[in-house]
């Protein structure tokens, strides 16, 4: 039996929403600070406030009506949408291979121009970073807000080694990873005993420290000007012309990313991977089984950092130029968002989230100013919609029936 449409309740709800929106909007939307030669003054835009109130009120009314109608008719999401989301989990292994196939053939597709491949390269860098951070946050459950520091160390390591000692990219790549790992190791020792949220702020602070050092240690890092003229990689001595180089770089990052993925997947099936997940679940139970949490945490941290180091080296070589501006907290936030939005522990989830968070905004580059606003809004909305991430179920790493 359909319940009566609660017009009065929804109307009051909408009205209240509109009023609150007006109050919120009044100072910042209603007034504008105008900086002129005479100093600071105020201009008014009260119509914006009115619009904000109207939009919020009607939005609330619409959403309220919609949820009433859906609940009333016992409808959820349309069946097709529900089935689709459910099927995502089931087809996962096949979806993985499909994505790899698409990625491998992307540069050869009819619609792929230099721009597309370039954007895809950027997405892949973030996918690789996401897979690396996934080891720290997703597997071991460590809240690392300073991942960008390891990324920066990798990038600057390669840049300095390449420009000062003229070592090839392929030689520097493992070195960059090693240096990043060593950096994380030194930082990790004092810090990993700390409780989860304290660890978060300390890692955040360390990353900021790294950025400030990069900015100010001009003799080493070139300060705000950064390091330029970073050589591009060659393949067995072949140097590429720019058009070909874009494709070459794309395949390099694709290979690196896939290697990272393979590495992470393997680790998960090894004792260390299981120990990380156990640590995330219950540290005290781990201790009671003889596992040393600190060693495990350091291992996770260092491994994640190594992956970030590789990604950093690639980033440096792709750009040809790096500066501290590329290594802000924002980057750590984006990578963390990719991991969490993807559903921690889910490899494909990371790919989807990277496409969503990095790929889409790139496509909307024109709306530059609104891009970041939309990005932040997307983070909030996706968390509200699916707090466990887009794809968050867990597959056991070992099974009795399969043996």
């Amino acid at each position, binding site marked *: 039996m359909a319940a009566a449409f609660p017009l009065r309740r929804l109307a009051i709800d909408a009205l209240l929403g509109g009023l609150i929106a007006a109050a919120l909007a009044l100072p910042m939307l209603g007034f504008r600070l105008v900086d002129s030669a005479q100093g600071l003054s105020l201009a008014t835009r009260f119509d914006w406030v009115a619009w904000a109130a109207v939009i919020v009120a009607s939005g609330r009314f619409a959403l309220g009506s919609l949820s009433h109608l859906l609940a009333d008719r016992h409808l959820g999401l349309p069946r097709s949408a529900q089935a689709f989301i459910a099927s995502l989990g089931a087809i996962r292994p096949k979806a993985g291979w499909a994505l790899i196939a698409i990625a491998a053939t992307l540069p050869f597709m009819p619609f792929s121009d230099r721009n597309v491949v370039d954007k895809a390269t950027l997405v892949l860098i973030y996918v690789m970073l996401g897979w690396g951070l996934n080891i720290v946050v997703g597997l071991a459950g460590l809240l690392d807000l300073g991942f960008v520091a390891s990324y920066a160390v990798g990038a600057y390591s390669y840049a300095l080694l390449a420009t000062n000692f003229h070592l090839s990219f392929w030689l520097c790549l493992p070195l960059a990873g090693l240096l990043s790992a060593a950096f994380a190791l030194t930082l990790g020792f004092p810090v990993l005993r700390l409780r989860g949220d304290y660890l978060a702020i300390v890692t955040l602070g360390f990353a900021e420290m790294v950025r400030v050092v990069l900015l100010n240690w001009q003799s080493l890092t070139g300060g705000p000007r950064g390091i330029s003229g970073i050589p591009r990689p060659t393949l067995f001595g072949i140097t590429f012309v720019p058009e070909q180089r874009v494709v070459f770089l794309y395949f390099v990052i694709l290979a690196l990313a896939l290697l990272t993925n393979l590495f992470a997947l393997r*680790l998960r099936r090894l004792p260390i991977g299981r120990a990380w997940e156990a640590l995330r679940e219950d540290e005290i139970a781990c201790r009671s089984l003889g596992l040393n949490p600190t060693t495990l945490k350091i291992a996770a941290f260092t491994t994640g950092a190594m992956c970030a180091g590789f990604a950093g080296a690639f980033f440096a070589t792709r750009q040809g130029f790096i500066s501290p501006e590329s290594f802000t907290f924002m980057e750590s936030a984006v990578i963390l968002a990719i991991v969490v939005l993807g559903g921690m522990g889910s490899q494909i989830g990371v790919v989807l989230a990277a496409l969503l968070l990095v790929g889409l905004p790139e496509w909307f580059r024109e709306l530059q100013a609104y891009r970041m606003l939309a990005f932040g809004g997307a983070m909030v909305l996706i968390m509200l919609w699916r707090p466990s991430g887009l794809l968050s179920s867990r597959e056991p790493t070992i099974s009795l029936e399969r043996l």
Partner: protein
Amino acid sequence: MTRALLDVDHISMRFGGLFAVNDLSFAAADKAITAVIGPNGAGKTTLFNCITGFYRPQTGKLTLHHPGGPMALERMADYTIARRGRVARTFQNIRLFSRMSVLENLIVAQHTTLMRASLFSVAGLLGLARYRHAEKRAVEKARHWLDKVALTDHADEEAGSLPYGSQRRLEIARAMCTDPFLLCLDEPAAGLNPRESADLNRLLMDIRDQEHIGLLLIEHDMSVVMGISDHVVVLDYGKKIAEGSPDQVRRDPAVIRAYLGEEENEELPPEVIPDLKDLG
């Protein structure tokens, strides 16, 4: 008389001004089940936490008579006691790795062995045979214990989704997968119905007789305590008030008083003194 496996020697644990455990001494014998009982708040779990290294007692010694030599537990870290001392434990509030499968829980318990076999993951990453064999052996051991606790059919299910009784059994199986010399169980029968308690009794006696290890047990369920213990230690307000065989302890007036809370100078005629097992 089997020798002592664990010597608790004048252990005191203080929190601020409160003595949770006060100058406690007793011995837990090897290849035997020792039960520690007492009213709530008597300090039993605190004692366990001291033995297993989660708390550091202010005074006293805890000596584990390990086959490789005596170990001073009071100075060792919790994970070292577990790893080198081979002391395993279960918890009052079950601590499983809820989102991992039953089998995975048991495999994690064998982490140390597997890590060594995988040469800190290197052999594992390369897929070397020595690691693959070690993993296979680990699964076999897990299967052995799964059979013992009748959870083989649930091996691939999420540990957190098991019913309560099964989770308790899983925790014991996980502890046994570490090949301990001393198994400490914190209220293993809590929340179990009589049939499950009887099964638990069988399991624990089985472990004592077949694995030849010592068990230390905190319990409130008197049917478990009286039914299977070889030795009982009674605590009240952190102090030991009685010790002996189950029969001795059950008739000890001091023990009954602790549970019933009678006035200290009240004399009860013998026929009125209840049997402890009726109080459980």
